């Protein structure tokens, strides 16, 4: 995936939306390169169990760096269908590959209409530029 193909939250999560074979919409969720660059020194990630119901804007896990711990927020409403369990042992490499190997969870979307509330790449870039200064 390329950053241009993704949708973003204001809290720096990205979502990549595809149809699964049954026709359901699945959002693959991760954290943007911008956010990972700010965090650095990641030491721990806590992800939800498969089957957990999540709501857009609600915490679905946490990511911890040497300095601080941050919540991960769900970009969508739905149910967690897959968790990237390999991530916990590969946090050092996460910042190098945030959009492919660095995904966190896959969520079966319950309400597609909420996707309209997410930022596209251009809008997200603008937000990051504003946060830098």
């Amino acid at each position, binding site marked *: 995936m390329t950053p241009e193909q993704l949708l973003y939250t204001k809290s720096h999560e990205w979502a990549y939306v595809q149809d699964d074979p049954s026709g359901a919409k699945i959002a693959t969720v991760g954290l943007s390169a911008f956010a990972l660059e700010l965090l*650095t*020194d990641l*030491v*721990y990630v*806590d992800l939800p169990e498969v089957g957990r119901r999540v709501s857009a804007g609600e915490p679905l896990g*946490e990511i*911890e760096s*040497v*300095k*601080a*711990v941050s919540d991960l927020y769900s970009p969508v409403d739905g149910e967690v269908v897959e968790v990237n369990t390999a991530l916990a042992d590969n946090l050092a490499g996460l910042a190098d590959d945030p959009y492919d190997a660095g995904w966190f969870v896959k969520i079966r979307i319950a309400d597609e209409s909420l996707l309209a509330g997410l930022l596209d790449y251009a809008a997200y870039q603008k937000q990051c530029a504003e946060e830098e200064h």
Partner: protein
Amino acid sequence: MLNNATLHTPLYDWHVANGGRMVEFAGWVMPVQYTSIIEEHKITRVAGGIADISHMGRLRFEGPGAAVFLAELLTRRVADIADGQIRYSLVTNEQGGILDDVLVGRYHNDYGQPYYVVVVNACNRAKIVEWIGTHLPRERAERPGHEVIWTDVTRLWAMLAIQGPRSVELLQPLIDANLRTMKYYRGGQVRILHPAARRQGGIISRTGYTGEDGFELSVGAGIAPGVWEAMLEIGKPLGIVPTGIGARDTLRLEAGMPLYGHELSEQIDPFQAGLGFACHLVGYDFPGRDALLKIKEQTAKFVRVGLEMHGRRAARQDCHILTDSKKVGCITSGTFSPSLGRPIAMGYVRPEFAEVGTELQIDIRGRKEPARVVQLPFYSRPKKGNKK
């Protein structure tokens, strides 16, 4: 965001131009890291790191009354410190609460006249300056034969911390004193042997806040960028890098050293903090002495301990320490220890739970995580053998 009221050290431009990630800290804009906290931390332990610590407050005292004035201000006996000697001390209020922890050093100028430098925490500088002002009224400062002259030199001098096993190798070419034979907690006024210093002097001490061998060097603000760059140039082949205040915090935590605003505050007394050694309760009378004499005889309500987490989530300041779901203490600092590869923390617990080996829980954002009381420090540098 960084607001305009924050102070810049003489190295601010260098930090910004060299990838320093700038954050607000105690009123100053400081680099938290240049590359990664873990990397800068580990390099300090194996080779060395140099850090800009010009935010540390430095107060200079001179005059015939300076020694006794400081002895009546600080908890530690300082009237008898020898030239070139440095002591760790506290400033306490009348109730015995800790106003600051400081280093006081005695030096002399080129004419042999002694002066003292008290290094205070950046977050406490304004408070201590005010405290000294109220304890040094004009009639005291000008008492014939016992005059005290003091200056806040924080903005005039930069302060650089050179820490790590290769710090002597780095600094010796720049300093006209023999650093190899300089003892721990000793120092002196020196000349800096580099064209960038324009033959100016500085004050060096074998002190630090990392648990490593190392030095702290104060130089004039104007020459600081040149001296800093000279140190980096000499340090490069030694594997020494610039380090930010992020690594400074993880290094001091591993070394079990308290930090004001975390382990130390006006609500904490020196005995709880394990700093009874810094209180000389006989001799000079200082604010808080009578209170401390009483506190010393009582059983402490809380004591400072080190904690190691069994899991991977780090306890942070203000997390509650529990046993059987009952609160028995509070975390004051916590981080991931780069040297140990797991989370460590310091905090205060009731004395009956302070014994090394005691198993406790820490409430980390609503989840109880197991932890064990361990001996401080978490990390001690390897002892030097006899081999050359």
